[in-house]
Each structure stands twice: as structure tokens, then as C-alpha cells.
């Protein structure tokens, strides 16, 4: 398995501002994923981040709102732009298992509260 860290672990932000969440993994991986977990809800995939190419966004998520960077094989960022209270969620990154590509391991998540 991979060891994944996220920064910040939690934050409280004002509406209209932006927050960048970092995801660091301890080994090189091709595929990284970003998810949102709204309060009391399940996880929804935001986008898939493949190193060296543009992120692929799921229906309902757009690059202007959730820009993603993937500068190398161990790091990615997700920015939540022009935040509103509806963006209050837990944001999680995950990585594919190097040996078993269909398996994903998850970071601890970033708890975001937008006032």
C-alpha cells in the first residue's frame, strides 16, 4: 500500500476565496484521483489526474471551479475556487496501487468549511 498525506487537514474559509489542497504520496504512481464527500454523503469522483496530461473531470465538475495540477508522479493539488457554503465537504485524494492497478488507497482527507 501507499502512504498518502494531505494538507491542510482542515480549514475554515470565507466565501469567494480559494483553497488549494495538496496530496503527497510516498511512491511514484501514474493515476491519482480526487473525491468529494459532502456532509453525511458518500464519495463522488471529481476528476482523474494522470501525470503529464490534463485532468479528466466527471460530469458536474469543471476545471474553472476545481483546477488540478499534477506536476510529478508523487504530488497533486486540487484548488476549490470561488468557494460557497455548498463547497463545505471532505476532499480526498487517492492513488492506484502500483501492483494491483484496480485498487485505490486514500489519503486522510481535508475537511473544508466555507462560511
Amino acid at each position, binding site marked *: *500500500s501507499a502512504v498518502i498525506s494531505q494538507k491542510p487537514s482542515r480549514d475554515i474559509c470565507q466565501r469567494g476565496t480559494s483553497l488549494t489542497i495538496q496530496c503527497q504520496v510516498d511512491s511514484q504512481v501514474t*493515476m491519482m*484521483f480526487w*473525491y468529494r464527500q459532502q456532509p453525511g*454523503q*458518500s*464519495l*463522488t*469522483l471529481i476528476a*482523474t489526474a*494522470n501525470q503529464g496530461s490534463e485532468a*479528466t473531470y466527471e460530469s458536474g465538475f469543471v476545471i474553472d471551479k476545481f483546477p488540478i495540477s499534477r506536476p510529478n508522479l508523487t504530488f497533486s493539488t486540487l484548488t476549490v475556487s470561488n468557494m460557497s457554503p455548498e463547497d463545505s465537504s471532505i476532499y*480526498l485524494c*487517492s492513488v*492506484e496501487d502500483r501492483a*494491483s*492497478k*484496480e*485498487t*485505490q*488507497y*486514500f*489519503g*486522510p*482527507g481535508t475537511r473544508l468549511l466555507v462560511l
Partner: protein
Amino acid sequence: AQSVTQLDSHVSVSEGTPVLLRCNYSSSYSPSLFWYVQHPNKGLQLLLKYTSAATLVKGINGFEAEFKKSETSFHLTKPSAHMSDAAEYFCVVSDTRNFNKFYFGSGTKLNVKP
């Protein structure tokens, strides 16, 4: 399209009794299926996975799940619940033909009574 349905949003059992968390899936082709657990204020932990090998899959902490193609089910079981099993459990299907994207079920909260 891939999807999973978790049939129970809440399950409550007494400590020492069996646990059954139900999951049905929909997939256009042979799926990869997973169960993850999320303890309060903690990250997601992989319990077990099915990836077209043995249909009865054993995971961590005494959990197991059986893949039944005829019933399109992947139910999670444990013979004897422990207080530490109280958490939320997610059934997940992977789209193996599309970057192994994960599609999560709605989750089942397991309560274990003393």
C-alpha cells in the same frame, strides 16, 4: 455503466452477533468490487476486494464477502461483531475499462450495541 446499491443505510447488531451488509452491483462487464470502511473522523481503509479470482474473499478484521454473479451481489459478512466494527462501510465498483474509476455506494452505517 457501473453502479452499486447498498440496500441498508443503517444496520444495528449486538456485540458477538453476525454482521451482514448488503451490496448489489450493476456492470456491463466483469467487475472489480471492493469494501472500504470509514471510522469517524478517519480516512478510508480497504477491507477486501474481488478481482475475478476466488468468489469468496477474505479481508481484514474477520470480514469476508462473496461475489455472486447470478445475484449481482457482493455482501459483506462477519461472524461475530465487535464494538470496534462500528463505522461506515462503502461498497465500491471499479470501472476497469476506464482508468479504474471508483463508483461508491451510498454507505451503510454499522452500529454495534454492547
